[in-house]
């Protein structure tokens, strides 16, 4: 990309549309492009089809804000912090009514599917999925729309006999083909080249597989770099469409070498996410009330942000107290 593609946070909503298959980068509690997601919620985007594998607060939040009508994921949750109540309510209340469709996968198959997407092959064989109820055709969450929705594969999987070697039964799974890919990285160059530390997860593959790639970065690195630095680059600028500089843009998730998870945010969010009314209040206070991400960070508080800043020697912050049941004692 060129420098003309360095954008403002407010612009990203223009590049995402209802019905789009959206890949949200990072991994559950780590390097999630939260600042960009808050923008999408403020823009009241609806009918998104979330395809990232796995999902964390990013996905539960988008669901809770009413932005999502379809999700295919292997996991949606907050790991040790608590349960994804917005996601849960979709099933436990409306019993999976047609206004929210969910298709269950696994980390192994999700990985193979986005790899196939990056290779631009329509499907890929895998050994995973066998032996589980995920193979039961009645449990195919997208069963009713596979023949009608062109953004969904016509089948969840197909079995065939290996014609080349021992002739074992194989499972073919369809490629994931996101329309939009949202990633948050530590550093990006003006030409879109990205640098990620602490693990790339599936971000590179998702960027390669997606039609439009939008990246928020802690820092835009300007000017000529030493060759050594180049060796750390993991995403070439050629496959990046837009970048936006957003310090703390991953909060409340952890960004290696920058800052840690914010347990206080999770405690408040998870409590609020237990009911529709409390969730709406949370959205009002934490999203709609802020006309800029700076306002949001003020809401978090500079004292808390300082506590989250990573110790360069570790890549995380040894200073945050992580036992949610004890946090109240110190705050």
């Amino acid at each position, binding site marked *: 990309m060129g420098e003309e593609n360095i954008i403002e946070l407010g612009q990203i909503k223009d590049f995402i549309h209802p019905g789009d298959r959206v890949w949200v980068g990072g991994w559950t509690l780590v390097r999630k492009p939260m600042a960009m997601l808050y923008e999408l919620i403020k823009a009241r985007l609806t009918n998104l089809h979330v395809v990232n594998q796995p999902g964390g607060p990013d996905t539960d939040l988008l669901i809770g804000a009413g932005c999502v009508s379809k999700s295919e994921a292997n996991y949606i949750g907050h790991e040790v912090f608590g349960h994804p109540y917005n996601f849960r309510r979709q099933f436990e209340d409306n019993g999976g009514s047609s206004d929210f469709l969910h298709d269950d996968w696994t*980390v*192994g198959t999700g*990985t193979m599917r986005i790899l196939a997407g990056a290779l631009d092959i329509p499907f890929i064989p895998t*050994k995973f*999925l066998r032996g589980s109820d995920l*193979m039961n055709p009645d449990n195919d969450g997208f069963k009713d729309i596979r023949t009608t929705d062109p953004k969904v594969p016509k089948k969840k999987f197909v079995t065939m006999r290996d014609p080349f070697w021992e002739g074992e039964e194989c499972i073919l799974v369809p490629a994931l083909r996101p329309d939009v890919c949202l990633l948050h990285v530590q550093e990006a160059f003006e030409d879109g080249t990205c640098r990620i530390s602490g693990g790339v*997860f*599936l971000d590179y593959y998702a960027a390669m597989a997606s039609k439009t790639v939008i990246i928020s970065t802690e820092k835009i690195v300007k000017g000529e770099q030493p060759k050594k630095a180049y060796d750390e680059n993991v995403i070439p600028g050629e496959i990046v469409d837009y970048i936006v500089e957003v310090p703390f843009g991953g909060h409340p998730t952890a960004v290696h070498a920058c800052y840690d998870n914010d347990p206080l945010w999770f405690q408040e969010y998870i409590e609020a996410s237990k009911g529709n009314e409390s969730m709406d209040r949370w959205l009002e206070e934490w999203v709609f009330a802020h006309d800029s991400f700076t306002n949001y960070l003020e809401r978090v508080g500079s004292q808390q942000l300082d506590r989250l800043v990573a110790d360069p020697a570790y890549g995380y912050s040894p200073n945050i107290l992580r*036992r949610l049941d004890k946090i109240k004692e110190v705050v």
Partner: protein
Amino acid sequence: MKAKYSNLEMMVTAASRLLQDDQKVLVGTGIPLVAGTLAKKTHAKKMKMLMEAVAYDCDPVSLPFCVADPRAVYKTKWLPTPVEVMGQFLQSGAIDVGFLGGAQVDKFGNLNSTCIGSYKKPVKRFEGSGGASDIALMAKSTIIIMSHQKRRFVDSVDFITSPGWYCRQMDGKSQAMRSDMGLKGGPYAVVSTMGVMKFDDTSKLMYVDTYYKELGVDLETIQEETGFDIDISQAKPIFPPTPKELEILRTKVDPEGIYIK
């Protein structure tokens, strides 16, 4: 007299003892990670601990929140992606032990981390498989850790997220014994808050191998808290945690008391 350790501490210690040097162990977050870390810091220093998102041969000085946590990659020698860890190491059968938790386990060691009730209209919906289904399927052996309650130890799980010894067949409907389906691996043990369960070599049914006698657990309680008839005839009292195991667990593995509260 009252034991100077908790059921949770006994469970983590019992689980850690099942891991050995020179094994490649793929662990999930939570208690499995705690047990794996305890093993690495006690009897299995050369054991390689992997996490699905990025961590390879990790030995965290602070317990990770999740499998992608910066704490998991601190000082690791290689930073793979899930394509290498799951797509290559696990899928090629190179992982010795998979270490899993779940919401429900049944008498054949099938695990459920998807939902309670029907899949379409569940009474309770959980986070989903994550890597559990893949790990239970492709690791050479699986160890399950779970709190021992009647609602968790059931005759047959509501949803087979992670296949045990009696799996779903390729048609997605009927069930068959794992070996008859040509699948390798399978659950080796279930470590609970009351004891360590294993599986009969021929019937593949769960039985009680050891129980936490010193903590006041008796076999009747285990049967009461188990939702199916379980063989207790071979049950032996477990060897309690050594002072060294307890000290390392409390001061080195989880000093913050994140998991072992």
